[in-house]
């Protein structure tokens, strides 16, 4: 390998301007791939974080109630006109056991039983429809770290304390320490003290959510001891669907992952990934063709030298290697420069850009990009290298 390597390096160094031009070409290609990959990865991570920041990865509910139809006598036919049954608010059976089981699943990070249902919030003349959410604070915080988003007071429920959203507080003119009457129908009502106000940045939540202690919500919603939903977060967000179906099998409950509830988002993410791959693929292709064409020209330019080297004892295999090494070096050097340029672009985006989100710098991206570029270089060199190896030395030496 020593002599092949040396000849390859000397050839590259001799064709300085050619080498420099193609290196710039490869570097531009690689920097585009590195930057766009980092950008899209960062963007997707950001979108997912924002979406899942206010959402559980998996939501578990009691299975839908269905109509039971009496079996008919044998030999008779029954026509049934069936209305879908209204789904009343009801508790998950044996939810304590379900929570215990989920706590033991290795992929599951946090489990939080919740009781939630509709109510009216009344203050003076104004009336707002709200969603009561009865929680166990310690468990719920692991799902949605809501104390980070408190804008007034503190995140404290229980003993008649409640935490409400910023928009709801504005609508009802409430401040921390004020009283609020919650009306859940059927003469169940209670007056709570506003302990804190949160702002998650999601209109739906900020204008409707009222966090209460689990027990207080249970009694308001007339579900003593029950919970309606179990929220779950998982370790690997993209395995949520797998974990969800596993939970459904284990418990026989309705279990929905964030991927199912955000189909639109998942579609957007996967088409984004697809378009990134397409761009990368085509940039890589044009880089490959660039390397191939430069080396083809080089083989023609060096025809006579190839002939001399062959006459002096270079085997076809050695000649092949000389040009494959040149391709590999183009890929390696070009991607080194290109990766640095790509990182410079990422840095510029993070520090000088619009600041919409932060692109995390992955440590594996560069080695992967360089490995792929080097392999691409070798593959693109294959055709010119074969041509060089197969040159007839007799013809090549006489080539002018």
């Amino acid at each position, binding site marked *: 390998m020593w002599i092949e390597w040396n000849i390859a390096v000397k050839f590259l*160094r*001799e064709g300085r301007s050619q080498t420099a031009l193609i290196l710039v070409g490869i570097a531009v290609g690689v920097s585009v791939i590195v930057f766009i990959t980092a950008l899209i990865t960062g963007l997707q991570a950001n979108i997912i974080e924002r979406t899942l920041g206010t959402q559980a990865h998996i939501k578990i509910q009691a299975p839908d109630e269905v109509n039971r139809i009496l079996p008919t006598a044998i030999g008779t036919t029954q026509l049934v006109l069936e209305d879908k049954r209204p789904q009343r608010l009801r508790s998950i059976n044996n939810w304590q056991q379900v929570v215990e089981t989920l706590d033991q699943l290795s992929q599951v990070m946090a489990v939080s039983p919740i009781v939630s249902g509709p109510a009216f919030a009344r203050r003076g003349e104004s009336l707002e429809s709200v969603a009561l959410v009865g929680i166990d604070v310690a468990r719920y915080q692991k799902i949605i770290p809501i104390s980070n988003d408190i804008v007034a007071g503190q995140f404290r429920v229980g003993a008649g304390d409640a935490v409400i959203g910023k928009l709801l507080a504005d609508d009802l003119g409430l401040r921390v320490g004020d009283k609020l009457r919650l009306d859940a129908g059927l003469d169940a009502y209670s007056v709570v003290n506003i302990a804190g106000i949160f702002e998650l940045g999601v209109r739906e939540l900020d204008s409707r959510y009222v966090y209460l202690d689990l027990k207080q919500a249970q009694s308001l919603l007339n579900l003593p001891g029950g919970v309606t939903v179990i929220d779950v977060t998982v370790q690997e967000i993209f395995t949520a669907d797998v974990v969800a179906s596993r939970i459904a099998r284990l418990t026989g409950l309705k279990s929905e992952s964030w991927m199912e509830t955000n189909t639109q988002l998942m579609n957007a993410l996967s088409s984004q990934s697809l378009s990134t791959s397409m761009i990368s693929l085509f940039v890589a292709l044009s880089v490959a063709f660039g390397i191939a064409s430069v080396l083809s020209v080089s083989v023609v330019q060096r025809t*006579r030298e190839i002939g001399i080297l062959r006459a*002096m*004892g270079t*085997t*076809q295999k050695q000649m092949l290697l000389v040009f494959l090494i040149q391709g590999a070096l183009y890929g390696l050097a070009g991607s080194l420069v290109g990766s640095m340029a790509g990182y410079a672009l990422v840095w510029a985006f993070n520090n000088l850009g619009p600041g919409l989100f932060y692109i995390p710098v992955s440590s594996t991206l560069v080695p992967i990009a360089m490995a792929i570029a080097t392999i691409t270089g070798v593959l693109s060199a294959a055709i010119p290298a074969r041509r060089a190896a197969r040159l007839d030395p007799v013809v090549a030496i006489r080539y002018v």
Partner: protein
Amino acid sequence: MSEGKQEVLRLEAIKKSYNVGQATETEVLHGIDMLVAQSDFTALIGPSGSGKSTLLNLIGLLDTPTSGELFLLSKPTREMDDAARTSLRGNTIGFVFQFHHLIQAFTAMENVLMPLMLVHGKPNRESLDRGKELLSEVGLVKFLDKKPNELSGGQQQRVAIARALITRPALLLADEPTGNLDTKTAADVFALFRRFNEKFGCAFLLVTHDPRLSDSCDRTLTLVDGMIVRN
């Protein structure tokens, strides 16, 4: 050729045709028999188009004959594959071309060592010494690190001669080695050939147009229309 010397090259009924099997098939060499022994100093002359270069390419294992057999150091070569031919060529034959044919990207010393490096990789102490010795023999020891384009035509040709001799070849083939040089430089180069012929006992086969050159050789083969007419 004197008797008792070791045989280097033997050609038996060598024929060479181009465009074999096509309407334009032409036979260039019509059955050449030839023997070159150790330390022979032979000239091959003939008008252009007589097949000199074709014959030289066959002898140099750069090309294969259509029929007949070529023995190099008594080894038959017709059935050899590329690797075997390349290896035999590298070990036994040195080339000097009309145009020096050095590799521009390498220094004079690296060019001289190239045939060794192609086989053994990084040159060892012994190879380096041998390269240096040869370059000083051709009077270029001061130009070790010069690139070919920094040398004159005569100097380049002398580097090429040193390169041809680095492997201690049994046979040195020279195709119009002085064709591109002025009279004085040509005489110097020829003197070098003579000296190496005596010193290393290496057989020389020179293809030339120059009658002064061929007259100074021990033996002259004349090729006309693909046949050796005078020996």
